[in-house]
């Protein structure tokens, strides 16, 4: 048994392949979203009127004065960050026709819980809308041991849906 364990250790140590926790560069996400015809980025200034609902969504104040986004027809794309357990998670979110078209984990920095980047988790957000009280209209199943990362991604999804409603690309604008 001891020999088996030591063999496993040596195997894992010698067969490591360098890879980064950057799963996709934000620029690549935007390029792919708009098929290389990327519109000029726009900005939403977080006025007093927007700060209160954003604080309710995130359970804390948003850390910047404005949020950058890209928009075309009825679609917007967002690169947002929220802390999971200790580190920020960078997430790309596409909103189309006032629902989530795609959630993609771009950069994951925590040492555990990285399963949140896989489609078996992120595909749950597809076609999700925002309710009147700024919650998702669908239940999202979590991943054991990654609760804080799951919560962070849910908050960013709600935030992106809310911010989309403030843009000229929203159907209800």
């Amino acid at each position, binding site marked *: 048994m001891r020999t088996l364990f030591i063999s496993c*250790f040596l195997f894992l*140590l010698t067969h490591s392949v360098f890879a980064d926790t950057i799963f996709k560069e934000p620029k690549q996400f935007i390029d792919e979203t708009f098929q290389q015809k990327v519109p000029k980025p726009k900005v939403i200034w977080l006025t007093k009127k927007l700060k209160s609902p954003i604080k309710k969504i995130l*359970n804390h104040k948003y*850390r910047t004065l404005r949020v950058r986004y890209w928009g075309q027809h009825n679609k917007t794309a967002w690169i947002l960050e929220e802390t999971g357990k200790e580190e*920020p998670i960078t997430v790309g979110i596409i909103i189309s026709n006032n629902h989530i078209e795609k959630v993609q984990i771009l950069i994951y920095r925590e*040492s555990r819980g990285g*399963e949140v980047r896989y489609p078996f988790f992120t595909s749950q957000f597809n076609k999700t809308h925002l309710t009147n009280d700024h919650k998702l209209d669908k239940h999202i199943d979590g991943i054991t041991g990654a609760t804080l990362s799951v919560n962070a991604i849910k908050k960013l999804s709600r935030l992106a849906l809310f911010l989309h409603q403030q843009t000229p690309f929203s159907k209800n604008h």
Partner: protein
Amino acid sequence: MMTSLSNVTLAATDSEEMWNTIKKQQAQIDALNAKIEATADAMESNSSSSSQSKTTIGGYGELHYNNIKGKDAAIDFHRFVLFFGHKFTDKIKFYSEFELEHALVKDTDDGSNGGEVELEQAFIDFNYAGNHHLKAGLFLIPVGIINETHEPPTFYGVERNNVEKQIIPATWWEAGLGFNGEISPGLQYDVAITSGLNNTSGSIRSGRQKVAKATAEDLAYTARIKWTGVAGMEFATTLQYQTDLSQGASTTANSALLIEAHAIVNMGKFGIKALYAQWDIDGLSNGAEEQNGYYIEPTFKITDSFGLFARLSEYDKTAASSTDTSVEQFDIGFNYWPHENVVIKFDYQNQDNNASNSTAKGYNLGVGYNF
């Protein structure tokens, strides 16, 4: 005619002046916008550097009220825990967990002071390859459900379940080296060589040395495979082997093998957990050469902030004994989360202890948090 021509000339001059004024004003507006954007960039840059401190502090805690028939009712700040972490680089990080149990530690000659101050985690994590980590130091053994994840808002019931507490025995930490990472999407592994338990009679929970000047004559080897390939589900199994549970103190071989397996399934508002664990220890004849336990826990979340649970559990620390020494328990209760990181708990328990021929019926209340 001359008047009309001069009027047209005057009008053209006025338009041109107006146009020049508009252009000048637009240039001023553009310059102001550029200054506003630059100011916002600078403010956000400052805010970002100060908010991304390399040193983090976190914690959790829980206060319990226990009212069990046949015992004095008790109120106890069971755990006050602080996490300290530091990021040396993106790939090298330090994690630690410092705990005070039962609110007070008194220095007494016989050590009967009730409280404990413990270092439950202190390790360096090396992210040597994208999805693979090496950790060196004192860390939690990768086994069970609550051994690694036990912040109060993450589980039902005021007290941690007895099966994992008595059989696994959570919370269980050792010191050594460990690898963990991802084999394929949703499939993770943990492999660890660490210090081991130290006990000559097979009392597993008492055998935890807690890395306090621990005897390391016989190390422990742990391996776990965990699958979380579907959101809301987890299936895992752990094996641990130690060549001599007595660390050389016993004259007979005391090899010990732990097998643990569990399943967690959450689908919408419903959830269920099931866990089984067993020890096989050589060289004993007091019944403790076999120990096992299991529990099943269905849950239902009425809303995102209110959930119900029930738990059926049984464990036996001397399962090889000729008499029934099992401890059976039924629990039922609820969790209320006024905030995702704060929980209020209630449960009713009904325990039959066949080992001591006693019962423990009553209720428990608790409040807990993590940040």
